[in-house]
């Protein structure tokens, strides 16, 4: 039982994909201007993550390792298309807010990363829980960040109150505010983590450790990461 619990909970705090592993940065920065947008993106990505983890785990013995990345991408693209259709049909307002970032779930590196690092090697149950945990962690981080940006940037929370509580500080809703709030959130995460977890070491650079391409990357096998 312990490993099932572990596979679910690690994505929420210990290996939070956004705040600890610094993955999925594009959607995190882009849709976090409103709480509704952040929540919609989180739920949509979680759906794709759980479904693709289940399917990839079921197929893990059938997919030859040479072509596993393209195979994973096809599975993920299929579920992304399903999400696109569902949102267009049932919640068109969310579809409008997410816009181009909805089809771009297919290249969200959290999803390909989990397929490569986890679902391709573990049983269906564990993979589903792993996907759910990572999805919840992603959604929580997105909602937290969008709450901060919406509160300061428009003076509202999830669109309430309609006219804003105070004059908005527009820069928080602007792209620059996204980078700024994200930087401060990671700083706060590192501070809090160091306080509660004695073994914690903050991620200091954008290294290859979480990159889904690490295993097949020539740069990596030649030594060093992208930057070397």
């Amino acid at each position, binding site marked *: 039982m312990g490993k099932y619990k572990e596979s679910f909970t690690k994505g929420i705090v210990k290996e939070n994909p956004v705040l600890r592993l*610094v993955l999925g*940065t*594009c*959607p995190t*920065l*882009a849709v976090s201007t409103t709480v509704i947008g952040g929540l919609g993106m989180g739920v949509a990505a979680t759906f794709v993550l759980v479904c693709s983890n289940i399917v990839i785990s079921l197929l893990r013995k059938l997919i030859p390792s040479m072509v596993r*990345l*393209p195979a994973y*991408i*096809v599975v993920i*693209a*299929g579920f*992304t*298309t399903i999400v*696109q*259709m569902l949102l267009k049909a049932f919640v068109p307002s969310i579809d409008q807010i997410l816009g*181009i970032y909805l*089809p*771009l779930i*297919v*290249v*969200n*590196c959290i999803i*390909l990363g989990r397929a490569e690092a986890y679902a391709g090697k573990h049983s269906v149950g564990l993979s589903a829980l792993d996907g759910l945990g990572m999805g919840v962690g992603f959604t929580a981080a997105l909602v937290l960040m969008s709450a901060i940006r919406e509160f300061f940037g428009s003076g509202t929370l999830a669109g309430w109150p309609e006219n804003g509580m105070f004059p908005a500080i527009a*820069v928080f809703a*602007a*792209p*620059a*505010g*996204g*980078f*700024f709030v*994200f*930087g*401060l959130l*990671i*700083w706060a995460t*590192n*501070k809090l983590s160091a306080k509660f977890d004695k073994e914690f070491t*903050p*991620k*200091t*650079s*954008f290294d290859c450790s979480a*990159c*889904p*391409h690490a295993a*097949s*990357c*020539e*740069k990596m096998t*030649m030594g060093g*990461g*992208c*930057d070397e």
Partner: protein
Amino acid sequence: MNNLFLIVLGAMLVNNFVLSQFLGICPFLGVSKKLGSAVGMSLAVTFVMLMATAVTWPIQTFVLDPNDLGYLQTIVFILVIASLVQLVEIVLKRFVPPLHKSLGIYLPLITTNCAVLGVTILNIDEGYDFVSSMANSLGAGLGFLIAMVMFAGVRERLETADIPEGLRGIPSTLIAAALVSLSFFGFQGLFGL
């Protein structure tokens, strides 16, 4: 002609892919530590963007649209980009080894770069014709190059700066990116775009 020029400048400065639209943030943060690798990565991205647009635009217009298969766009585009990148890598490795050594190593990373898939989908959403689509992709690629080169310069300075301990590493990089992005905010509304 005038119109094409506006599309290139618009994609490059006003709607800069990295700093205004948040597409391609991973390589922007990950490969910008050294100027050399930043330029290599940007040129590879620009090249793949142009190639991908040249292939995906005809597919959408002549295959998907007439057959009412628009819903397959995401799957088809990502597959086309992935195989295209593989093909380019093989061709470069076989025929132009020096170019493969300087640009080719970034190619596998570009498959899942959201800027490439993003520009191909945006071209369709905006309803551009073929030439405008290519212009938009060129502008997007050049915009990526400008952002990367500027940011690589900033990061080389950051290396030696005295930063409070908690902010060292990723937080300071993101805050620096915020300041670079703020400078591009100044282009908002230019040319009425």
